[in-house]
């Protein structure tokens, strides 16, 4: 396996992790919104921010893959 292949694999793994993370955030946010519809706006913005934090990790993976390419 070439270094590019390994890098791509790493990026994919990072994406899986981020996918799980964002999925959990989204699921919990939906649940919270269903429970408390009056907090809709606040939950949505915090979910977005948290998703951004999780996503950053995956993006670091992607960037690492680009660097190694």
């Amino acid at each position, binding site marked *: 396996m070439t270094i590019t292949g390994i890098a791509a694999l790493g990026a994919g793994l990072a994406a899986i992790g981020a996918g799980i993370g964002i999925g959990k955030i989204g699921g919990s946010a939906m649940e919270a919104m269903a429970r408390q519809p009056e907090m809709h706006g606040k939950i949505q913005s915090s979910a977005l921010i948290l998703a951004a934090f999780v996503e950053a990790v995956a993006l670091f993976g992607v*960037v690492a893959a*680009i*660097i190694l390419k």
Partner: protein
Amino acid sequence: MELIKPGFGLVFWTLITFSILLFILRKFAWKPILGAVEEREDGIKNALASAEKARKEMENLHADNERILKEARTERETMLKEARDIKAKMIADAKDEAQAQASKMIEQAQAAIESEKKSAMAELKNHVAGLSLDIAEKVVRQELSNKDKQLELVESMLGEAKLN
């Protein structure tokens, strides 16, 4: 690799453009826009506050009115009560007086009746005495026209006297 290598020229131009944009917008756009928005919000807040104040004042006024009305009502009540009392008293007084008057009149009438009765009695007595005398005279005259009977009477009279 090349994708994540920042080009110096673009960094330079971005910095300059962004700084100018920030400067201009800050001075000529954000300040007036935010200022206007804030001013309007303050205006709304003030208007709401004054409306609230007016409402409170209105409420106070209302409460005052209510109080005055209540006072007036109680006053009326007391006045009515007083009037009623006075009326009752007046009626009672009148009744008493009338009663007194009536009883006095009755008394007078009784007294008059009594005296009338007395005088009538006296008159009757006199009349009866006269009548009795007349009757007695007539009886005696009739009796005494008979000699025996005169004697008998004297005797019974004497018998009575003896007893005494």
